[in-house]
Every structure is written in C-alpha cells, then in structure tokens.
C-alpha cells in the first residue's frame, strides 16, 4: 500500500499531459480546476488543480467527503462539462466535442421508461446501427449474467430499484465502451441489494475488464471493487492521497470485507478521509 504523501511527488508533475504520459494510461487530468457560479453571484471553487492518471483496464475509485466535488470531477473526466483551467486527455483526445465511446452510470435512473428492459439494454448498439439479431443476442447474454432473464418485456417501472440499476449497468456494458464512469451508482439502495450489485460488478469487471472510474462516498465499496483508490480533500477538492488495493482477485464482496488486509486498508484510508470529513463539516458551518 502506498499511503499518503504530497500528490505532486507521488504522481509526478506533467505540465503537458501528453497523450500517453504513463505506460497504459487512458485518462490524464492535469491541473484541472472548476468553479460554480451561484445565483447570488458568489463563486464556489469545486475542484482545484487536480492531477490524476487512470490506467488502462484499471478499476479506480474516487472517494472524499460528501459534497467535495467528486461528481464534478467525474463529469469533467467524462467530457460532460469543461474545466475552467487545466486539461483532460482521454484516450489521446482532448474532448472538445466530448470523448468517444464512453459509458456513464449516474445516480439517477436513466433507463428510458417507455422502452422495455430489453430495448433499454439494446439502445447503445441501436444508436451504432448494429443489426437486430446482434443486439438481441448481446442483450440476452448480459441480462442472463445479472439475473434479469424473464424480464425482457417488462418496463422499468415494473422492476425493483436493484433490478433497474442492474439493467443500467449492463446497458452500458452492452455497447462495449472503452471507459465506464460510475457516479455513486448504488446510492439509495438497501445494504443487501448493494452487496449483490457490487458482486455483479466484480464479476462483470472480471469478465469484461473495462477501465472503470467509480465515484463513491462509501469507503468499503471503493476498497472492495477497486485496484486503486484516490482520496480527495474537502472542497475545493484536490487529490490528497492514492492507495493501491492489492487484494487478490477474483474477489467476493462479503468475504473480502473480513480479511485483515481489507480492514487494515480501511483503517489507513479512513484516518485520512476522517480529517477531510471533519474539515468539510467545519466548512459548511462557515457558509
């Protein structure tokens, strides 16, 4: 485990953010800064001078105190918004018109309510003009992998929250994006459903080996799923530390949590995260 230390010396300053600054790196953020303008003309600095690399086929989690700007960072990495300063290179593209072939799973439910589950899973391939039988085949295979077989013709409103989330995850996998961003995807689900979904994610990752960037405030979730965890500070967020998660794969959600290695990792990261949470709470008091 690599522990804390100043971000600059750990990652290495990379002013040009070259397309391949590090072997196998698919996302590179350099000096990324973003502020928000509130209605009362105040400006809030959400994230400041973030430097971050994501390696190919890596499962990276971004954790930090609530409201610190994690989701903001993710929208910037995914090209949904532009940074005020700094640059982001994804797969060698600077993302003036967004980045190609990405997947994004958000907190909110974005299944199209007028389409059946099957049609929802197919949509990415449909947008790419793939033939119907190929779409059907892919969708059926993925639905079977997460236990949604039998719900092909159901509409999203007929599914439980957990099932809708599963459908959203495989909908993203279906069109085979290079990178998948997940913004607190399991928020609002009960603990058992979360465990089951995390289990699904572990299995799907093992099988599909995508580059995944997950934003979460749940430290245990981050450790369970990731190869590496990036800890952000309280707002304005910047990278406080990075931790490698050398837990053996394939992992099991529940068993992993009881290993001494997991507990040790959680203790270390929690010590750093706890400081930031306290700072974030104190910061709220000043607003």
């Amino acid at each position, binding site marked *: 485990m690599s522990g804390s230390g100043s971000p600059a010396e750990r990652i290495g300053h990379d002013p040009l953010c070259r397309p391949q600054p590090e072997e196998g790196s698919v996302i590179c953020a350099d000096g990324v800064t973003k502020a928000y303008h509130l209605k009362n003309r105040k400006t809030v600095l959400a994230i400041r001078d973030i430097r971050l690399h994501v390696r190919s086929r890596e499962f990276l989690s971004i954790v930090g105190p609530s409201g610190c700007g994690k989701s903001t960072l993710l929208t910037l990495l*995914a090209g*949904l918004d532009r940074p005020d300063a700094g640059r982001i290179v994804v797969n060698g593209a600077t993302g003036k018109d*967004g980045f*190609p*072939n*990405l*997947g*994004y799973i*958000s907190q*909110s439910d*974005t299944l*199209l*309510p*007028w*389409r*059946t589950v099957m049609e929802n899973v197919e*949509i*990415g391939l*449909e*947008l*790419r003009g793939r033939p119907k039988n190929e779409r059907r085949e892919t969708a059926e295979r993925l639905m079977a992998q997460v236990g949604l077989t039998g719900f092909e013709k159901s*509409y*999203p*409103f007929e599914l439980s929250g957990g099932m809708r989330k599963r459908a959203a995850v495989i909908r*993203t996998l279906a*069109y085979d994006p290079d990178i998948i961003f997940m913004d607190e995807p399991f928020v609002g689900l009960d603990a058992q459903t979360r465990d089951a979904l995390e289990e699904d994610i572990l299995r799907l990752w093992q099988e599909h080996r995508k580059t995944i960037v997950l934003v979460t405030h749940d430290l245990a979730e981050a450790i369970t799923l990731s190869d590496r965890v990036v800890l952000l500070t309280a707002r304005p967020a910047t990278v406080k530390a990075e931790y490698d998660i050398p837990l053996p794969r394939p992992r099991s959600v529940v068993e992993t949590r009881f290993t001494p290695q997991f507990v040790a990792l959680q203790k270390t990261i929690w010590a750093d995260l706890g400081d930031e949470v306290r700072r974030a709470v104190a910061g709220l008091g000043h607003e």
Partner: protein
Amino acid sequence: MNRPNVPEAIRNRLLVLAMVAFGLIVWELAADRKMVNTFYTSKPTVIFTDFYQFARSGELFTHLAITLREAFSGLVFGTLAGVVCGVALGRVVWLGNLFEPIITALYGIPKLALAPIFILWFGLGLESKIFLSALLVFYLVFFSTFAGIRSIDANLVAAIRLMGASRLQLITRVTLPSCVPWILTGVRGGIGASLLGAIVGEYMGASAGLGWMIQYATTTYQIERVMACIVVLLLIGLVLNKGLNACERRLLRWRPGHG
C-alpha cells in the same frame, strides 16, 4: 389500475343507459302534455323519426362525410404543425425565444371570431373550415408539446447523448417518445376543437356539412333536424374518444396504471 370486475362494469353501463332512457321518456311525456314547447325542443320520437329519414335518404352521410373530412384534416394538420413547432421551439433555444412570445400573443385572439376572415381568404369550400379547425388544434397540441419538451428529464438526454447518440437520434429516441403523453393530451382536446372548427366554419358560410345543416334547419324551424344533427355530433365525439382511449392504452402502457 383497479378495474371494476365485469359484472359491475355491465351494471354501471346499464344504469347509465337507464338514466338516459328515463330522461328521454320524461322529455317525451312533458312534450305530449305541452309542458315544454315542441317548437323549441321537439321531442325524442320525432327526432328519432327524422334521424331515420335523414340517414335513409343518404343525406346524413353526405353531410357527415364533409364535416368529418374537415375535422379530420384539421386534426391531422393541426397536430403535425403543433408537434413540429413544439419540438422545434422547445429544442432550439433561439427559435423558442423568438417565436414563443409571438405564438402566445396570437393565442389571445379569439380564433372562432376570425372564421369570416378565413372564409374570405380560403373561400366557401372545405379549405376555410380545415384551416380554422387546424388552427384550433394547433394551439392545443403546440402548447402541450412545448411544455412536454421543456419538462424532459435532462438526465435522460445526457445519458443517451453520452452513449453516442446524434442530434437526430436524440429527437427520435428521447425527445419525441417522452412527449407522447403530452401530445396525446393535446390531441384529446384537439378532437373536440377540430369538430368545433369545422361546424363553426360551416355556420359562417358553406353549402353542405352538419354545421350548415344545423344552421339551415334552425332558420327554417326544423328543430327535429337540428336535434338529429346534435345526436350525430354526440355519437362522433363518443366514438373518437373511445378510439383515443384505445390509442393511449397502447402508447402509454409503459406508465404505471396504463397496463
């Protein structure tokens, strides 16, 4: 949805029919005893006889066909224009900023009052009625489509765009389907409005159609004919609304409560 079971549904239907029959009998008896003046109201048996002759001579269907053609054309053109303008003005911000206030301002004009001008512009034929009818429908469909576009879940649009959808794909896959309930609301009002436009247009100047018939029969004091025409209009309204209900059930089965 909590549907009443079948026997109960039939019982309700029978109750409604019994109520209507009761009303007709009261009307008939009141007319026979001179409690109401048949010069103004006629009475059910006379109306029915007239309706029968009207239908048998084929005259009814000639006039009905004309009015329906006007109303349907108005409904179709008005709906198409309303959806296209609603989507365009809702999606393209500068178009919306430019035209929405103008369209809203023009909405303030009582459109039926413009019927004589449309007769002047488009003549005594079908075109003037279709135009009036389409105009009424347009406003209903436009406003509800526009509202629908403005209320689209931005998250859905962002999610599908991120999956690689083009602008056109976003419109066909997200914008239009999510507006369907709103468009249907506009069309529901539009059915009545399209008939209204056709009938009022015919009052103003025509040589055929149910509206013309009502106008003509009133001026010649054939109250039973006026009433027969009103019965026809009532039946049209019933049939069209049933049809729309069936459409809604099919198009909106993805919504809770429409299964």
